[in-house]
Structure formats: C-alpha cells, structure tokens
C-alpha cells in the first residue's frame, strides 16, 4: 500500500507541483484547495501525512491543523506546513496548533521529497 498524503494549497500551480512530485515518487496524493476542503476530506479517510499551505482563503492552514489535531485519527499524524522563511511567527503559531514541522517555501521537488521521506521513513 503506498503511503497517502493530503496536499493542501490554494495555489493551483503549487498544488500541481507538489502532487506531481509526490505521485512520481510513488505516494498516493489527494489535493485540497483550502483548509475547509482538506478537513472535509480528512474526515472521510486517513492519511499518513498532511502537507498544508498556511495562507489560504476560507480556512487557513493554522486552523486546519488545530481542527485536524482535534480529530482522534489525526492526533499523531505528521502535519507539515508549507511556509515562507518570513513566517517565523506563523511557524510558532502552527507549532502551537500542533504542526509537526514545516517546509520552507520556495522549495524544489527534491527538497520536498527529502523532507517527506524524512517524516514517512
């Protein structure tokens, strides 16, 4: 069974890039365009990893992490924020909400894969 990843980003190009990269490495990927969409998907099934952008319309990444952590199935699931280096405060906010860690934007496909491999082993 391939490991499954939920990729959340409101930017289509970023989402495409992330999904394409991860699928190419053999992961199963589902995409969501904002926190609310992601949460809805997350409630219907489980994932081995969640990758989420922080700044998104409807529901932002921080709130998504908070809500996911409140779900029993996502208590310990690794959740990585996709964030920019300027977002130190955001990182802290994310950590407090329960984020596992972050991938600093901009990242290239190799950096993404390396981090994902680090987390998923």
């Amino acid at each position: 069974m391939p490991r499954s990843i939920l990729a959340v980003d409101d930017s289509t190009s970023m989402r495409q890039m992330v999904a394409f990269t991860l699928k190419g490495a053999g992961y199963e990927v589902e995409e969501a365009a904002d926190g609310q969409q992601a949460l809805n998907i997350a409630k219907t099934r489980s994932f081995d990893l969640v990758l989420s952008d922080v700044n998104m319309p409807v529901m932002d990444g921080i709130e998504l992490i908070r809500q996911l952590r409140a779900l029993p199935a996502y208590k310990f699931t690794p959740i990585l924020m996709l964030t920019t280096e300027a977002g130190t405060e955001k990182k802290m906010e994310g950590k407090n909400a329960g984020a596992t860690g972050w991938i600093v934007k901009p990242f290239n496909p190799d950096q993404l894969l390396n981090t994902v491999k680090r987390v998923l082993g």
Partner: protein
Amino acid sequence: MSIDLSQFKQTFLEESDEGLDVLESGLLALDSGTADDEVIHAVFRAAHSIKGGAGTFSLTEIASFTHVMETLLDEMRDGRRAISKEAINVLLNSVDVLRELLDAARDDVSPEMGRVNEVQAKLEAVLNAGNDQATEAQQDAESEQKEPESDGWVIKFHPHEHMLRTGNDTVRMFKELAALGDLENQVDLSGLPEFEHMDPELSYLSWTVHLKNNEQQGPIDKAVIEEIFEWVEDDCDLTIEPLISQADDTSTSERLDSPQAAETQTAADNVTPITVESDSQTVLSKEPAAGVQPPSRTQQSVGAQQKPASRKKKVTETGSIRVGTDKIDSLINMVGELVITQSMLSQMGEDFSMEKIEDLREGLAQLERNTRELQESVMRIRMLPISFSFQRFPRLVHDLSQKMNKKIELKMLGEQTELDKTVMEKIGDPLVHLVRNSLDHGIEDPQTRLAAGKSETGTITLNAYHQGGFIIIEISDDGAGLPRDKLLNKAIEKGLVTEQDNLPDEKIYDLIFHPGFSTADQVSDISGRGVGMDVVRKNIKELGGNVDVSTEEGKGTTFTIRLPLTLAILDGQLVKVGNETYIIPLVSIIESLEIETDNINTIAGTTEVYKMRDEYIPLVRLYEVFDVQPGTHRLQDCLLVVVEGDGGKAGILVDDLLSQQQVVIKSLETNYKRIQGVSGATILGDGTVALILDMSGLLTLAREIQPAQNYNNQTYANG
C-alpha cells in the same frame, strides 16, 4: 530525480494574473475605504502566493520583488502599520511592475530592471519608515557561527511532555542522526512517573547522544544536527556541544540494532508507553537508515535541478481566447444536430421520389436552422464580457483623480454585456480617452462642485448594453457639461463655422469631434491638446460604429458609442448600380429618398450638392467613382442614399435599393489588395461577389475625382 518545473509555470502565470487583479481591486477598495477585513487578507494572500510560486519556479526577480510587497502588506494586515494613501500608491505601482515582470517571464525574456528597482526602492522606503529593528536581527543571526574542530557532538535532548502531540517522532530524529556518523545513545529514565500516573500521550524520557565523526562521512556540521531538531526546538531542551575527548567512549549502556529499536519506539509512541520505558533503555547505534538521504546528496541534486529551469525558450501564445465550457457544449450540440440533419438528407437522396418533396423541403429548412444556430454559436465564442475592457478603469480613475485633486466615484453597469474580442481590443483606447476626458474636462474640482450646489464627489458612469445588433457603451459624468457658447466662439474663431450658420445645439456639441478642437483653458497632460476626440471618432468609425455626445450645461455629459457586435458580420443595405451590387453598412445610412431634380445644385462649378430640407449635402455618383455602366442616367429613376461618413453627410446616387441582410465580411486586403472606398467584400446567396463600401474612404475618393469629371456631370444633371 529531476522534474521539469516549467510545466507548472504556465499555471503559475495564469494564477498570478488573477492574483494581480485581486491585488489591484483590493488595494483600490482599501484606498476608498470600502474594504472590510477580508480584503486586506485577500490582498496579502495574493502577494504571498505569487512570491511563493515565483520562488518555486525560479523566477527570482519576481520572488524578491514580491517579498518586499508581502512584508509591507503583512504589517498592514496585522495592524502594525496604518493603511496610508502613500503606501497604497506605491503598492499599486508595484502591481504594475509585477505585471511587467510576469509578462517578461511569460515571454522568457529578461525584465527591464530599471523601473523594478526604482519601485522596489520606494517600497523599501515606505517599509523602513517606522521600523529599523529588522536589520539588527539579521546581524545577530550572522554573528552566531563557526564552531571549533571536534571529533563529533554531544547532544542532550530532553523533549517536553507534549512534544509527541505535534506528530514529531523521536525515533525519526535518532535515525537521521545515525545517518550522519557513529551514534551512541543513553536514555535517562529519571523523569518517568509511576505507572498509574503515566499518560500514554506524553513524553517522559530524555537522551544524551554521542555522535562521532566517522571516516566515510567526515566531520559533521552542527547546522545539520540543528536542522534535524529544527521542528522541535521549542518543544524540548536541547544542547549540542562539541565532543572533544574520546575517554568514556564505551559507556555502560548496551547496544541494540536501530531498526528494531525504531519499531518498538514507533509502536510505543502511538499506543503503549509502558513498553517504551522497558525497551528503550537502549542505545541506537550507527545504522544508515534506509530512505534517509545524507545531506551531501541533496545538495548535488539541487544543483542539477537548476539547469533545466533556464533552458527551453517558450513561444509566446498570441491571440488565445478563454471560452466558457457552456459555449463549447452548445457548439458541440449544434454540430451534433447538423450531422443528424445531414444524414437524414443524404438518406433521402439515395431513394428520392417526388412524394418526398415535402420532407426534403422540411429537411432543408432544418439544415438552414442548424446552420444559422451554428453560426451564432461560433460567433458567440469570440464574444467576451466587456468587463475585460472595463476592469482597467477603477485604477485609472483612482490614479487620475488623485493627480487632479478631484473626488470621483466610478460606476460600472452592464459589465457582463458581451462583445467581439477584436472590437473589444480596439475600443480600449478610445474608451480610455473618453474616460480621461470626463475626468479632466467633465468633473469639476470639489470647490466648484460645492459652489454649484452639487455633492463634492463627482460620478462617472460606464454603461454597456445591447440594442439591436449593436452594443451601446455610454460614458457619462455629472460634471459641468459642454459650454455651448465657448464651443461656438472657438469654432467661429477657427473658421470652422460662421456666425450666420445658426447651428442647432447638437451640431455645436458635435464640433468637439472636429480635428484640432480643444476647450480646456489649460492644456493638461491628462487629455492633451485637442488631438483626441477626432481620433476617437475615427477609430470608432473604423470599427463600423459611431460616437455621439449629448450634454447639458451644469448637469453633465454623456458620450454614446454604438458598435457592431462583431467585425466578422455586418448589417448591410444592398444597392444596385447597373449590373453591380454594392453593400452600404446600415450603420452609416441616415435615410434614403427619391430625387427631386430641382434640388440639385452645383457649387463653384465643381461640386454637385443636393438640397435636403435646409441642408446641402454633396452628391456622389457611385457609377462614376467606380467607373461602371449605370442602369439609367435619368436622375428621377435613381435613389439617393444619405450616409454619414468621416467628413459629414453625403448623398450616394444608386439605381435601386435591394434587400437588407447580414453579410460575412471577407478581407479584400488579404485576398487581393486594399482599395480606397471599399472596406471588404462578401459573397451573396447567388454566389456573386459584392463589395462593401467604406463611407469615409468613398467620400474622400469622390472629392478627388469630382472636379475632373465635373464637365461630364453637367450633361447628366438634368438628363
């Protein structure tokens, strides 16, 4: 692994265009004070996304430029900085720069950096006004570096109780450490509570890790270790110190293979903490964990990744169009029906007999219906909502009203009204000119308005709607209106009219479209020096449309543009001259009438004119202009089509009026060559070719040849 990122670049550019629109309209809303909290967030997000994507897709200029914008917007969003007019203006300038940068990226050319740097400097100036601390933090970070040479590192790691709740896994970190060198691990159980007090979701252990350099991998960089603990640095107590002596190398702890330990630990983290305590009293030793790549390899592939990004030149797409799927669906539907009709007819053809004539007629009627619907559907594909053209105006009005210290509100109506793409592109400039004109000459400054008993804020309204086969665009303002007497005096002064002419009001107002006419007391750089309104009218006429002005002094002015919905099809009046059929665009025709020979006069012995009511209009004999044989020389048998061209009205002499119909315009230029007085050709139902007349060109042509042929004209005059 190398992934060609350019495949996502197009998507990125498209979404950035949308982002720019969000930025621009958001900033304008912020400026006018009509924005709520969500607007600044949306604006920030747009800049943020562009920056993120630009960095990812190696568009460094865009990334570094948007970074500054983003920082500024971030402060505004958090309320750390007031949303000032100055900042908004610089941000709006930045949007323009960003647009240029994105265009450059689209065309794969290097951007013009002069303006970019200039605006970036302005942004930074706004940003730095008020905070200077930012740079200090950077210097602090820089000063902290360089550790002495050592044999390795001693890492003391004490996770806080709740660390596991962030989904971080200690085993992962140990695995990553183990991949760097030789690892020895001591666990400290002292924090462990009594069994009954244990919470399975908390972490109670702490570790002392000895990480030694080994020969294959060389010295370990402290930064690499820090990176491993990066995500948990606030969730643990962590010290990383150089390992100097090799004295207590072999410690008291026992060894265990890491995979095994990892398994138990993972299980423990997730479910049963009881086993953690008993089993993880162990040491993780060196074992390059599968799946974790050493950092050196990462760097290599990063380098390799950068090359493909700069290769491959992409051809810029020209003239593409975004079509709603509903339009395509309806098109496919039509084609489906056409195919059914066609197969029905061809089946009928196989065993046709006269009894089936009624069916055939019905089939043909259906074919005609299908064809017409298909044609309409195809035409609709080229149609875009006029909002594409309107969307630049909020910004224009904002910038110009600020420049002129006027308060102006822009209203836009009928933005969804659809118009042919080509017409849309060509109407852009005339519209801008008219809006600028309203801003500059129409709306008065606040003081004048107040003095005149009007509200301080002027209103400019753009309205678009369909009327018959035309689209009407109105640009109206509630400004001062056109000064009738001033216009008239100026026209007299310029010799365009005489005082005796006794022009009706609308004629006077129409003078503004006359070449070389400007009423502004002071020439401004907004609407210029009277080069303009004549060009506006000329451009609109070239599109087969017209523009008129109506005004009331003190109340305002309205420009009404009338345009054909498409340039590919024209509503035409077919006229007959001898054996030839010509088409006069319906939009140019004012009226048609039978000729009273008494009304024909000749001015100065050269120009024939026709007295129509109290007006004299020049007469154009089409057969002379095109040198064809007329059906009759008896003027009583002829008809006069009164048209309006560039230089005013004229009467065109034709043998007969035929039907009015829509004709498909075929370019004469691409198929033959340009001919003065003819704008194109079309193929009529019977297969013959008919020329479509271009009124302005025709009238000019007629003026040129008339004097030469004047002598001959006399012989026909009363014939």
